[in-house]
């Protein structure tokens, strides 16, 4: 135990050290900066694996390294924890980070901000691992803000580009809306779940264990619902769920490795992690879970519908990320119990499904983004799918790796995404059975989930066929000889495609034992909630599985038909339903709605405030300034520069003074 706690702090500390070193040695390191970042990430990854293996036999390790602050009855320590959930997230985050850092050393080659890029990526890894390992809500919030900062810095990496600067600002402001909700949630937890129910008594560390225990003991449904909603608000912002999803597609202005690392594989899953971590709170508030599931399902469908018509390859992937995150929330929202006081196997199944999808999604989505980055690299930074095509012979390796990722995302049977998506649908199906609260709504959500699965398969392969099939077309920016990316970029792609193909087998339930489920069940926050047992019968599981296979293959087939066999058909379909097509192409006009209802009134307010400040406030200040000036005009004539006038004034003044003195002495 003690030796584990002595290496635990190194996992975030190594990337932090790398970030600091690169910052200060950057001008000297230049194009060697990536070594520090990659080494730190790999070391963290190795340590995470040690933790993962060690935790399998042990209880969770919780260690307070020092007291962060202690005010009145709040005692917050810099406490790291390692349990099953943490270890699993750590391995995912650090492994993907290492691969992406290696890829980025090729992708960012020759960029003037090379050192800055790797300093910021290292800093991000520090914050992300810290976020996962934090043992109390305040520490979690600190790191939560930290990853937001890194996201801002990295989206705006090419800050000379106005679009990138605007996207960074938008991402920061929109996620901030969610963060405020999270902060309010944490404050409510402090007020509401204090031991003995009184904030003035006994120390309170805001750690997960105590909070969950108190929430269970007090069992105040109204407060729980409100707390869960505020926590979920933070998750909605960070994980880009409707209505705060608008920042993620714009975040694609950042360098592609950043899109892969932060906006697909790791940071955006922080919201999923938060809700999974707080499952003991959410199961006590079934209405909150319903909201989570509805938001998740709706976002999944909405983003999938938008992704159908986007022409920018990275934007298709961005909307698909939003859609897949919606899936994860759908699973987390399905972690309901038939009876609020009894353990239920569904809770574990649903949370495991969400974490499992997070894991596989990290692999295949990072892969897809990196492959898209490789395409972009070869096409001279052109990413519009209408301007290139038939790249499957020109970019051979990229093509194969992209195909692996697309297959996994579409849910092609036996690939990674298939298993996790199937788990999520099973969990939702489980929640829709009789006896669970709101089972009717969960049935609708199940149908939404299935529909989204079909749409996902279609838009993924639409992007694949548009990019890699048909006649070879390249934009003039690409130059004469189109060649594949360098090896330093292709090797991470290959490793990730192995992950996209086989990562699903950690929990391929009917085929292999569910190792992941067994492992995660040991997480202490899940233990008391679950009992062992099957959620679904083999028959209903087979039904879900066969439906999702049929939909996935149907989607792929439709994409094949529309974009390879009959390339003209898609345009004719778009022309047949122009309204719907425009709606999807313009992202349901959500950005425009926000612009009209929120941004423009605020801009108007800002203009009004400026006018008010310039005219009214400044006017008052100037008025006050005029008073001494006016008095000055009265007294100015006595300063006339005549020596004798001054002497006279002095003599008269002295005389008056003396007369007064004599007068007083005389009387």
């Amino acid at each position, binding site marked *: 135990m003690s030796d584990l706690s002595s290496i635990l702090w190194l996992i975030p500390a190594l990337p932090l050290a790398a970030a600091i070193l690169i910052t200060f040695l950057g001008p000297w390191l230049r194009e060697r900066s990536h070594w520090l970042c990659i080494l730190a990430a790999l070391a963290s990854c190795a340590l995470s694996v040690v933790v993962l293996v060690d935790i399998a036999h042990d209880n969770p390790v919780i260690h307070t390294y020092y007291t962060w602050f202690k005010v009145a009855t709040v005692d917050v320590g810099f406490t790291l924890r390692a349990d099953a959930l943490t270890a699993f997230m750590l391995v995912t985050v650090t492994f993907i980070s290492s691969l992406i850092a290696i890829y980025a050393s090729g992708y960012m080659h020759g960029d003037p901000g090379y050192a800055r890029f790797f300093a910021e990526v290292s800093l991000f890894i520090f914050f992300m691992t810290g976020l996962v390992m934090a043992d109390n809500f305040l520490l979690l919030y600190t790191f939560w803000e930290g990853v937001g900062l890194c996201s801002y810095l990295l989206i705006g990496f090419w800050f000379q580009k106005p679009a990138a600067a605007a996207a960074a600002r938008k991402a920061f402001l929109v996620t901030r809306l969610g963060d405020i909700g999270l902060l309010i949630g944490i404050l409510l937890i402090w007020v509401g779940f204090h031991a003995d129910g009184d904030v003035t008594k006994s120390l309170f560390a805001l750690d997960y264990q105590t909070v969950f225990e108190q929430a269970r003991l007090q069992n105040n449904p109204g407060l729980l619902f409100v707390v869960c909603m505020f926590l979920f608000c933070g998750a909605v912002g960070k994980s880009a769920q409707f209505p705060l999803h608008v920042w993620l597609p714009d975040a694609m202005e950042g360098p592609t490795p950043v899109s892969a690392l932060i906006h697909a594989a790791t940071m955006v899953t922080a919201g999923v992690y938060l809700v999974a971590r707080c499952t003991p709170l959410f199961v006590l508030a079934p209405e909150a879970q319903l909201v989570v599931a509805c938001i998740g399902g709706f976002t999944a469908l909405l983003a999938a519908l938008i992704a159908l018509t986007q022409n920018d390859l990275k934007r298709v992937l961005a909307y698909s990320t939003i859609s897949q995150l919606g899936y994860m929330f759908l699973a987390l929202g399905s972690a309901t119990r038939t009876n609020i006081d009894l353990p239920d196997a569904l809770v574990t199944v649903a949370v495991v499904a969400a974490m499992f999808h997070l894991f596989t999604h990290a692999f295949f989505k990072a892969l897809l983004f990196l492959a898209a980055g490789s395409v972009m690299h070869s096409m001279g930074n052109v990413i519009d799918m209408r301007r290139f095509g038939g790249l499957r012979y020109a970019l051979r390796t990229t093509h194969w790796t992209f195909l692996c990722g697309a297959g996994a995302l579409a849910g092609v049977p036996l690939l990674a995404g298939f298993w996790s998506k199937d788990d999520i649908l099973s969990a939702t199906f489980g929640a829709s059975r009789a006896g669970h609260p709101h089972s009717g709504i969960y049935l609708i959500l199940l149908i939404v989930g299935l529909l989204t699965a079909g749409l996902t398969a279609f838009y993924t392969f639409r992007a694949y066929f548009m990019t890699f099939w048909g006649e070879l077309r390249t934009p003039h920016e690409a130059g004469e000889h189109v060649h594949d990316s360098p090896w330093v970029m292709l090797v991470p792609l290959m490793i990730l495609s192995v992950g996209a193909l086989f990562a699903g087998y950690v929990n391929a339930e009917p085929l292999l034992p569910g190792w992941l489920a067994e492992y995660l069940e040991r997480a202490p926050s899940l233990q008391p909630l679950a009992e062992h047992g099957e959620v679904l019968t083999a028959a209903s599981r087979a039904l879900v599985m066969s439906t999702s296979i049929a939909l996935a293959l149907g989607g792929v087939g439709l994409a094949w038909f529309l974009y390879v066999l009959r390339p003209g058909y898609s345009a004719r379909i778009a022309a047949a339903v122009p309204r719907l097509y425009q709606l999807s192409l313009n992202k349901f006009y959500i950005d425009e709605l926000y612009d009209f209802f929120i941004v423009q009134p605020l801009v108007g307010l800002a203009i009004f405030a400026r006018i008010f400040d310039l005219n009214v406030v400044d006017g008052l200040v100037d008025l006050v300034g005029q008073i001494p000036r006016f008095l000055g005009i009265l007294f100015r004539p006595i*300063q*006339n520069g005549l020596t004798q006038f001054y002497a*006279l004034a002095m003599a008269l003044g002295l005389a008056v003074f003396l007369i007064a003195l004599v007068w007083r002495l005389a009387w």
Partner: protein
Amino acid sequence: MNDPVLTLENYLAVGAILFVLGTIGFLARRNLIIMFLSAEMMLQGVAINLVAFARYRGNLQGQAFTLFIITVAACEAGIALALILMLYRKRKSLDVSLWQDLREAGQEPTLDEEPLELPPLESPLPTLTPSGLEPQQPRETSHV
């Protein structure tokens, strides 16, 4: 009044008269040198006061002060005359009212209603018809 003894009051009266005369001179005259002399006169009025009190009290403190005043006045005279010389060189006049530059910005300068006539400039050359070589003019190499 049949015994004309010089009392303290007599000395004080002389001192006061000197002081007031000096003051009036300082305020009324515009010639820098006259003003300076008036200021010296005021100092002497004060010095007489001090000497008189020293005699009256029978100690030497007042006389010591007076010695200081005379010393300081001597130094001051040196500096003041040098300054006056420099001022004269700038404007070719000793009129103090020519130096109004330290007035508040935007104020009109105070001008004489009836300005005095300036004396005619002397010709640098003798009035006699010159013959032969032009005599060597005194040429200053330094202002000090």
